């Protein structure tokens, strides 16, 4: 009897060891179309803040990172079907997404902002946007926000598969403004020649009340499958380490004038 119990305990232990996977290699996915967070280099590789942070985490964890490029709107389903192990693609931590996947702690937080022609009097408020055509990237926090607070109240929402297409249509005059992550707009459009006639319209939005805050979420994290709690814990530990040893600050400085971790 004791023997059997021992055997059983041994088996259970063995199983646990087997599930507590040794992450020798982590397959990260990113979109490669969301500058400066993730962009595709001319040679096809991915670069950017999301990529650098994840690579720094891997270095801290002494594991190998490989990268997969994945379209934004198929990102979470592909993670769940094991096409890769983690998403580092400026994905905001939201309640809706948490139903499907798990997140690490946030690695940065940025407000949303409205981008329009210089001198535009538009503001990110319902009264100002009524009857206007506002472009968002489908499935982003900006989309969720605009869908929730604006779409049913007379704002015409135009959804794009990629943020770059929204900028194209903004330049072409097809939409009045784009509602987007402010850092993305800064690095991906406003500081580029194509965006020189454009600027933020109105103030940036972190969430002006509890409802808005619930949609915008607590920041951007790395998404992993719910069952991979060990991976989440290891990534969180590594994240705390690179915050403490200055690596994070160095990477942030490379892309932005200030630390984008948020409070």
């Amino acid at each position, binding site marked *: 009897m004791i023997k059997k119990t021992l055997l059983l305990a041994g088996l259970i232990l063995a199983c646990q060891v087997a599930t507590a996977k040794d992450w020798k290699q982590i397959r990260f996915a990113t979109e490669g179309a969301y500058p400066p967070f993730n962009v595709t280099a001319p040679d096809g590789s991915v670069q950017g803040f999301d990529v650098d942070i994840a690579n720094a985490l891997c270095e801290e964890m002494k594991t190998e990172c490989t990268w997969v490029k994945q379209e934004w*709107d*198929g990102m*979470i*389903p592909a993670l*769940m079907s094991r096409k890769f192990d983690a998403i580092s693609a400026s994905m905001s931590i939201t309640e*809706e*997404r948490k139903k*499907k996947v798990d997140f690490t702690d946030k690695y940065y937080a940025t407000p949303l902002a409205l981008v329009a022609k210089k001198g535009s009097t538009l503001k990110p408020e319902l009264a100002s946007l009524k009857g206007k055509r506002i*472009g968002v990237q*489908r*499935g982003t926090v900006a*989309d969720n926000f605009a*869908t929730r607070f604006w779409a049913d109240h007379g704002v015409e929402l*135009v*959804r*794009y*598969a990629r943020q770059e*297409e929204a900028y*194209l*249509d903004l*330049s*072409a*005059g*097809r939409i009045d403004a784009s509602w987007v992550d402010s850092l993305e707009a800064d690095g991906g459009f406003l500081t580029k020649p194509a965006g020189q006639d454009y600027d933020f319209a109105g103030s940036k939005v972190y969430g002006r009340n509890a409802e808005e805050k619930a949609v915008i979420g607590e920041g951007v994290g790395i998404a992993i499958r719910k069952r991979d709690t060990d991976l989440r814990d290891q990534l969180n530990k590594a994240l705390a380490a690179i915050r403490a040893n200055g690596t994070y600050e160095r990477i942030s400085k490379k892309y932005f004038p200030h630390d984008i971790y948020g409070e």
Partner: protein
Amino acid sequence: MIEWAVITENLPEYAAGLWLTLQLTVISLAAGLLLAIPLAVLRTSGAAFVSRGVWAYTYFFRGTPMLVQLLLVYYGLGQFEWVQARWAEGNSLWLVFRDPYGCALVTFALNTCAYTTEILAGALRATPHGEIEAAQACGMSRLTMIRRILVPGALRRALPAYSNEAIFMLHGTAIASTITLVDLTGAARNAYSQHFAPFEAFIFAGLIYMCVTFALVGLFRLAERRWLGHLQARKSRQARA
């Protein structure tokens, strides 16, 4: 595990999407067919210059994917400052290309027109010599012959091939969702990105497409019975007895 909420919550959007898909399909098919009839006549005309001109048009539209054509018209044209200036001054011809709906209709109509032209041209070439000789014997002018004999006959013979083109077109309109239009596929993509449930979102759209396809097939079967009845196998009366 099927999440039915993906479908039930987005039902109104699916319905609106289906309506847009039907509009795009029917309008572009109608415009394409009307334009294809004269083009097919020109394509089969003896004048090499005219025939080659029409051939160049159909060659381009049949030789490139419709998605590429749509992206060219929508994002490509919008890139030019000259075009943007026309939009700014409210030039109504160019404003068609500012509207995604207009871009989709123009592209789809030109695309289906190219295919339909070749289908009709083939049917025109297959006109039996006897019909042409009979028309000439009756003293018909070339135009009268085209109007009374060649085009009606070609339209009948083209029906089976054209029914395929119509179904391809219905399915082809799915790419309208890449230029911000919320057609049936666009509705499915929105539902998918809200719930992260691709299977439910797309299988439902797929089922609707299938129903519409079957309805189209049924309509064409009726049309063939009406206009191609003389070519169908006759049912033997004795077999029934």
